[in-house]
């Protein structure tokens, strides 16, 4: 039975796609992964699994994706170039495909100094664009880097991340164009709070017709509290949270801030649904996966298409 990428099918059928994110545990328990999978099943078309995010050692993305695949879900394998060289990366792409994993998101990864292994050597043999190219080459030409043929090409839907809010601002659209040129087929953006700025970016994206060449999913991270909003705004690189959002969160008593955060997420999704060139949303509710069903439902995105 041939496995196909659910995400690809949904996007190709012109539906507004929903992907969610799942963080593996800092331990060897497969149940932790399966539990999150169960929570999200039916609420997202595909589920991203992070790859040792922020340089913290966690159950590997590849293994977690395999577990989710077995549970009948369509995982998106996040792959960072920080920890593995091209031999390992290409090998893992083959392995992922063999395990029925059909989506890969190519990233450089957070620098190792942020995590719990700051003395580790950052590999960075490839960068994210080079990984995208390599994956495309493997899939479309059945070759690894350097030209050696593969006995069987991997079957993968290839994605990349984009951050419309990071610097240098003017260059961000060029960067997206570059990722598309390298072979990215879908994009998940950094989480959006500043709709004006995102619209601005989309405007430039549409100017270059990039929205016709690549599927763009807008990132959504529900705010749990005003404190979280402030923390993210000041501490997390590439994050743009407008003052009015922070004020809105602060204006509400602590007990009700989660609800407010949920409301903001739903409003943002509704705005994205109306935005030309946005093909879906990517919900990153890390360590708050339970909220995803409410967001998806609240934004009128149920039921998910059964293709």
């Amino acid at each position: 039975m041939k496995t196909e990428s659910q995400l690809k099918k949904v996007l190709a059928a012109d539906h507004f796609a929903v992907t969610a994110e799942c963080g593996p545990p800092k331990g060897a328990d497969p149940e932790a992964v399966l539990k999150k999978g169960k929570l999200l099943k039916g609420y997202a078309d595909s589920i991203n699994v992070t790859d040792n995010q922020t340089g913290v050692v966690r159950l590997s993305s590849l293994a977690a994706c395999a577990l989710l695949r077995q549970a009948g879900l369509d995982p998106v394998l996040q792959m960072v170039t920080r920890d593995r060289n091209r031999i390992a990366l290409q090998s893992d792409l083959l392995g992922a495909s063999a395990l029925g994993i059909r989506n890969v998101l190519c990233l450089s990864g957070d620098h190792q100094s942020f995590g719990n292994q700051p003395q580790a050597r950052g590999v960075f043999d490839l960068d994210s664009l080079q990984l995208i190219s390599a994956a495309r080459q493997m899939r479309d030409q059945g070759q690894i880097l350097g030209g050696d043929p593969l006995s069987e090409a991997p079957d993968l839907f290839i994605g990349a991340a984009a951050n419309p809010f990071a610097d240098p601002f003017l260059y961000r659209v060029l960067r997206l164009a570059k990722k598309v040129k390298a072979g990215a087929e879908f994009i998940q953006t950094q989480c959006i709070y500043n709709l004006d700025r995102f619209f601005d970016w989309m405007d430039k994206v549409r100017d270059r017709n990039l929205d016709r060449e690549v599927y763009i999913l807008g990132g959504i991270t529900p705010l749990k509290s005003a404190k979280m909003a402030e923390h993210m705004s000041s501490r997390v690189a590439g994050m743009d949270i407008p003052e009015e959002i922070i004020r809105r969160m602060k204006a509400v008593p602590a007990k009700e801030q989660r609800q407010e955060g949920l409301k903001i997420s739903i409003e943002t999704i509704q705005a994205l649904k109306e935005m030309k060139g946005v093909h879906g949303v990517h919900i990153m509710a890390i360590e708050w996966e339970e909220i995803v069903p409410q967001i998806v439902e609240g934004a009128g995105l149920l039921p998910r298409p059964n293709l």
Partner: protein
Amino acid sequence: MITAERKPLEEIIAMISPYRKILVVGCGSCVAECAAGGERETGLLSSALRMEARMTSRELETREMTLERQCVYEFIDQLTGLVDQYEAVLSLACGAGVQAVAEVFPQIPILPALNTTFLGQTKEPGLWLENCRGCGHCRVHLFGDICPITRCAKQLFNGPCGGSKNGQCEVDPEIPCAWQLIVDRLEKSGRLSQLETVYPPADWSRQQGTGPRKIIREDQRN
């Protein structure tokens, strides 16, 4: 130049503790430029070590010398005849110099007084910045003459990453994002189109080699 920093005195003192007669040798090139191992620093270190020995009632005799370079045989040879009178040599050269001297005088321990750090420039007196990683395949001209391997914390050839904020690197706000610098410089000089190319993976074998690298020039040999 190659930059280095003096090891903590505690470490140096421990290193020389088995020896009572030491030849302290400085280097007049790179390490003098970065104020770590030149004649001045050699004098300073020797004085400190002698005083420490006196205070701990240890016998220590030192002689100071500074070679123009410690990585070239011609200069190292100046130590011939002298080295035998000492139990150890405390070298203020970079790692290349320490080892070069040891090859000429393998019978005597050559102790490194410095920690060799990086290839860099003297931006201003007292400020040294790393700007080259010796990758063996210089292509800085493609990136506005800013090396992405050295100055980007993730060695991206198709940067920046998503962590660039206010022109600063996500790893350290004191460090400028190399890709911001590259983009700015190319934009100002109308060369931003250079970045439309998706640069392929680097050939790291030119840096790692198959072990330590070497260069041979027959036209330069005797």
